[in-house]
């Protein structure tokens, strides 16, 4: 594990990863914090994910579960996963929670 990067670049590979075509075509340099965000996105990827519209349909239910102190992430795991992956939906969820937290009931 510790020297895995060496393995990536030096070992015989079954695929054409050593392709030497310039990889910078249209590819700007990525600051490390952004690279980390991108790799996290890849890491979290699941075979089956809900779309933004599907999450939008369930967002109110998910938010109310969270407001009641229920484990919304376990009860609606695909919604939770999407919110972890989609910045737009996450922003909308956060904005919704701001309203619900401010409402007396």
């Amino acid at each position, binding site marked *: *594990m510790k020297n895995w990067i060496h393995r990536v670049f030096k070992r015989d590979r079954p695929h054409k990863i050593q392709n030497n*075509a310039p990889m910078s075509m249209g590819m700007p*340099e990525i600051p490390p914090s*952004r690279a980390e965000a991108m790799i996290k996105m*890849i*890491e979290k990827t699941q075979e089956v994910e809900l779309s*933004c519209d599907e999450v939008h349909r369930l967002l109110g239910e998910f938010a109310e579960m969270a407001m009641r102190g229920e484990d919304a992430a376990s009860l609606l795991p695909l919604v939770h996963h999407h919110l972890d992956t989609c910045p737009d939906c996450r*922003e909308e969820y956060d904005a919704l929670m701001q309203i619900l937290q401010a409402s007396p009931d």
Partner: protein
Amino acid sequence: MAKRTNEQWLSNLHSAGPQREEAMAELSRVILAGLPYALSKWLSPEDPRFSALAEEVTQETVMRVTARLDTFEGRSQFTTWVYTIAVRVALTELRRAKWHEVSLDELLAEKDSDDEPREMPDLSPGVQSSVEKKEMMAMLFKVMQMDLTEKQRTALMAVAVRGMPLEEVARRMGTERNALYKLLHDARLKLKNHLEKEGFSAAEIMATFEKE
């Protein structure tokens, strides 16, 4: 006035005459009351643009809600459902205003940016540059060149690296947010599978970024 139940909201909004008028007026009040909280991270209620935006969002939300009453499934309070629509309308407008001068070409041609990525959970800050990380990114780029379509690369760079909202990227690419999410999902899946075939899990790669 007592709070309406979900059934009363639906019944009143479906009715005709004064009951409907009163329900519509109440709906507008509910939306207007919620917006300052929803937009607290975006726009202060004291900002001169706030009241015009709130008016516009309220009108659009009332229109959508009344047109889509039959799609309300009763999974939440009616007002919570209304807020999900109001929030979507408002943030769509704010994102459009914030990014309207930025083209995808300009965005991707930027050398670098000091802006932090948009706030996401678990994003540990302070990762420092290192040769190993640069090599890692170079490898990831190669995989992106091999496995992804031009569209997928553009979308991934714009969203994950440059922090442009999906909605804004979608508009520029002539598609919709839902379809763009699917495009990105396919791209992420391809990258993940490729890296795993090479014998590396994304978690393992991540560990390189986390260790200092």
